[in-house]
């Protein structure tokens, strides 16, 4: 698995996906050209470039309080969101005759972050040079990256599951609902475990005081 990280072929293929999303996602699903470790590394890279952009984009276009940026929490948040999206989408598409495996979904979403990674970093560098009037260029670059990334994500899910566009949009909507349900259940679970724990802890305390 880890070996795939050092395979030039896999990395080249990730960038091929950016230029030919439809074909590439098909091959990822059916010929195993994609790689999950590469996708995860891309997610981490995305989180890093996002944090770097927030932290050190030029003052003129950046209204974020640098004290509020914490790359580590953002990394954890992004990874968790990635996990939730993958699992959410997988659990919905399983029921809706999607052909994609969890692995394919993870790759589809991870590879779709490449344009965002590139554009965020270009934006961060460019923002060091722009003035207020030229700030529009910065925003265009960021918007392009995000838009292209979202389109790739959409295409990826569509191709991987062999869906029509309408069905993809419906499953994406359902995916968000699934994500909320998962969050709800997890919170509920944590809460319950907490109560059970405090119940046993109070029994323990009671025993210790009496003994």
């Amino acid at each position: 698995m880890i070996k795939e990280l050092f395979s030039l072929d896999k990395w080249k293929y990730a960038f091929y996906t950016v230029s030919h999303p439809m074909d590439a996602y098909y091959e990822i699903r059916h010929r195993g050209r994609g790689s999950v470790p590469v996708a995860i590394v891309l997610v981490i890279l995305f989180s890093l470039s996002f944090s770097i952009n927030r932290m050190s984009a030029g003052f003129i276009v950046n209204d974020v309080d640098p004290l509020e940026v914490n790359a580590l929490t953002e990394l954890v948040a992004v990874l968790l969101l990635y996990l939730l999206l993958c699992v959410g989408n997988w659990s919905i598409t399983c029921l809706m005759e999607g052909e994609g495996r969890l692995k394919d979904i993870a790759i589809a979403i991870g590879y779709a972050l490449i344009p965002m990674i590139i554009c965020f970093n270009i934006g961060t560098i460019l923002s060091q040079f722009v003035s207020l009037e030229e700030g529009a260029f910065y925003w265009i670059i960021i918007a392009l990256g995000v838009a292209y990334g979202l389109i790739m994500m959409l295409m990826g899910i569509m191709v991987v599951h062999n869906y029509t566009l309408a069905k993809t949009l419906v499953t994406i909507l359902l995916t968000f609902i699934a994500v909320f349900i998962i969050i709800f259940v997890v919170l509920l679970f944590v809460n319950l475990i907490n109560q059970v724990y405090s119940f046993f802890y109070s029994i323990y305390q009671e025993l210790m005081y009496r003994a």
Partner: protein
Amino acid sequence: MRRQKRFVRFAASLAAVILAASPCMSAGAKELPYDTYTYDYRENVMLTPAPYVPNGRITGQTAGTTDFREPQDLCVAPDGLVYVADTGNNRIVVLSRDMKETVRVIDSFKRDGADDTFNAPYGVCVSENEQLYVADSNNKRVVVLTPEGEFVKIIDNPQSEVLEDDFDFVPLKVTVDYADRVYVIARNAFEGILVFENTGDFTGYFGTIKVKITLWEKFWRRLASKEERSKQQLYIPTEFTGIDIDSDGFVYASNLDSEGIQGIRRLNPSGEDVIQKGENGNLGGDLWGSTYGTYSGPSEFTDVVYRDKGIYSLLDRKRGRIFTYDKEGNLLYVFGGLGSQEGTFNTPVAIEAVDDQIIVLDAYHNAILRFSATEYGSLINEAVGLRYDGDEKQAIGIWEQVLKLNENNELANSGIGKAYLTAGDNAKAMKYLKLGMNRKYYSIAWQRYRNELLTQSIGTVLTVVVVIAVLLFVISQLRHRKGKGKRKEGLL
């Protein structure tokens, strides 16, 4: 052994911290009964050195007369005398400029040969033309006197179509402009401020605050039946609470804003609000407050004083704080608080400025509290005044002194930055403008700095570019030839 070492190190660092902290503690030992702060660009509370400190309190007795009873208003005349509307005692007390003695007490006046008195005089104002206006609330009239107490005229019983038939004219606060137009805040006059000509004729309402109904409220009203609607709360405009006027005849009127966004209006002669809001668009006092309890919610401004050079101060009765803004709507400093200590209020009702002092009337303690400017406060006032006059270059020295006292002061940083920008020192301007969070001017400074850099280095940059281009060309040519050679070899 290791643990011991660690403990020693811990103890040493602890001692160092205590030693380092102790001089600061003793330096800040002058205890004030309130917090002094302002809000920074990111709307965080930023504690500042005290701009104003308590400087004594004046009661009726210390001024050489009997005690006040629930006084409601203050006014500083152009000649510096302080007029107190001593509402509970039905009199007007005139204090000397330093408020140490009573100049005179006006409790009655001769009108058409007969003695007349006040009944709960609520507001008081002295016009530029040296006439005393008293909002004689329970007599439902505004009495105009000379400063000595001679009767001039009476303004009462406003007649107009815009007034309801059963309108009860109870004047609370009054102010007068240079043309002797009289502006009156009356009880239950939600439509705005009543304006009277110098003849005493009512001309109309002024500065009406528009009621804001959100889409959501409209939606619910649409759903409600007529009966339900009649039981819902009425959407009435907020009331004006205090009033003051600047030398150009613009009326400053404080109002209660339940949203905490705009508690002050600056009304031009036609009654439109022309106040300038700062970067965050907020003129409502505190941005943050506790969410529950007696002291929760937005600030409630009860009075306003226009001071000088576009600076005005607002008195918040909810938390007893005084907010000072400049002409551009920047919050300069906040001080004051509720309490029972010296220098705090119970029921602050009116605010005025005498020279560089701010005086606040407390209706519960029946006292006037006096605050005098510290070095920090007066430096800010001075620098803002210079900026108001357009003299930013001179302000730079004062802003630098402000920075020495509080290096987080964004206005000071921004002011220095702007001065450097006009002086042509773009790199320094950038540094200060960034500290002052002034994006607009930072951008200008950066553009100029960028041009400077470009003109300086255009020669070298171009040379490097040309050299690289030539090199690339040569390399590609060489490769091409080599490739050709190889292919030929391969073919052979």
